[in-house]
């Protein structure tokens, strides 16, 4: 299992921050997922071994956190918030728009692997609602037209 040099240096440094190796697990899982695309059996086995845990212990943690996944998502994971503040300003309509445009539902992935869609809970953009996160990037104060534009831009970026 090969991770980037950046991952390795961050991982090594993080281990020095805690009295137990296991403590580095949650952030490490997210960084590993970002590189590998998903927390595959191979990634799980590798991290379990590095952190002196059983694979089951690692899986047990993965299943708890909503950002962690064992199945690959699209290149661009479109996360639409429909929680209260976003709902009041059109979050559900945005989600419908994304479903229609991408032709997929909640937790679905487009056939070309470019997009996946997720209805998510509050992402901390309440005062700039409705908001969407594509991977880690926030898009705020959205309208259907702006949403279309954003999806077009990612599509362009992803197919270049």
């Amino acid at each position, binding site marked *: 299992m090969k991770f980037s040099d950046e991952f390795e240096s961050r991982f090594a440094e993080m281990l020095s921050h805690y009295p137990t190796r296991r403590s580095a697990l949650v952030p490490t899982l997210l960084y590993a997922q970002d590189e590998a695309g998903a927390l595959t059996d191979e990634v799980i086995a590798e991290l379990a071994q590095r952190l002196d845990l059983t694979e089951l212990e690692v899986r047990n943690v993965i299943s708890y956190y909503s950002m962690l996944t064992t199945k690959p998502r699209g290149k661009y994971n479109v996360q639409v918030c429909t929680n209260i503040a976003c709902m009041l300003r059109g979050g559900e309509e945005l989600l419908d728009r994304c479903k229609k445009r991408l032709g997929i539902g909640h937790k679905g992935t487009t056939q070309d692997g470019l997009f996946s869609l997720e209805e998510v809970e509050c992402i901390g953009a*309440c005062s700039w*609602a409705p908001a969407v996160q594509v991977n880690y990037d926030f898009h705020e104060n959205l309208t259907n037209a702006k949403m279309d534009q954003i999806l077009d831009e990612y599509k362009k970026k992803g197919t270049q």
Partner: protein
Amino acid sequence: MATLVSHPDEVRVISKRFGQGATDIDRYLQLDGYKAVQKALVMPPDDIINEVKNSGLRGRGGAGFSTGMKWSFVPKQSAKPKYVLCNGDESEPGTCKDRLIFEHDPHTVIEGAMIAALAVGSHTAYIYIRGEYRYLSVIMQKAIKDAYARGFLGKNIFGSGYDLDVYWHGGAGAYEVGEESALMESLEGKRGIPRIRPPFPAVVGLWGGPTVINNAETLAAVPHIVLGGADWYAKLGTPKNGGTRLFCLAGHLNRPGVYELPMGYNLKKMIYEVGGGIPNGRTLKAVVPGGSSTPVLLPEEIDIAMDFDSVAKAGSMLGSGGVVVLDDTTCIVKFALRTIKFYQHESCGWCIPCREGTDWLKKTLTRFHAGAGLKKDIDNIYYLAENMLGKTFCPLGDAAAMPTMAFVKKFRKEFEDHLDGKPCPFEKLGVAEPVLA
């Protein structure tokens, strides 16, 4: 990224460096950065604690507990290392304030955590930031690195002989982890399941050592208190509610945004003047005053001071500072359903009343909103919620129960209007879709 707003009534303490480029350590130093911690380094720890106590600073995460008091619970002598843990897992719906602090002024959180560490005799602090806030983790990691490079962190900080490490830690998506004991579990590399208290974290916390856990906004206020003095800070607010706080105005408003206002600022004024009132000529229907877990207030209940005690007196909570405004086109049943759907999703499943209660509430409200509700459901919803209250190890059960009870109590008529197969009166199409499949 998030747009900044301003209003003449704002009193800028925590937000005074917003938009000033203070993520850069030199700029932060120009703007009085790291002066407070140097002052604290020569103060006896008890003096720091007393200063914070006298400032009237209360926890900005939502519970509103006296920060100085919390610090004073940490034993002076401890065989195990003591820790400071900054809670930046901001995820209470309606709340988006810590985001701005991390984005614009990360060093102030580091400095606040350092002062907390000095006050309780700790040599290690962690700043936990939710996984979704990756760009803020990048900013924070850089800020910490810069502080180490200057000798502000690490061995012998500022030549004082005191060793102090501050580390970043990241989450991976979980509301429950914002609860202090679940936060510690998460930092220890586990599922975010709450711990049974007592013992409280101040005595037995991270890896069994005494631990102070403070919200990011709380810690961001600390350097200002140390520099400006407890009296100055206390006088900004109301009695027993010192200072200012970041209020996140959201929902049906003309000028939503995060505004820093004195504690005790009038809620009505906050909505109509600071937030610019309700758009499109509509009228106010209700206000959720402090994040989704706080009981809803009616328009006739909002002429109140926004401090912990006044909002409690009005039957709700100041909570995390997330003010969500609902206009007259909002269906309360749908709003209640969306609120409970969140808590159902986020319940860690550890305590049965919360796990089963939120699930049954979601099912019942879904059916109810779809027009298939029974008259007895209304009382059942209330009864279910009531039976979750106070019966769980962490406050997530209460957070789900309290708003639900208030919705039923204050909007019973609207629940009744959904009965007998009638379409939701607020859905234009006449067919009420459940909020979620």
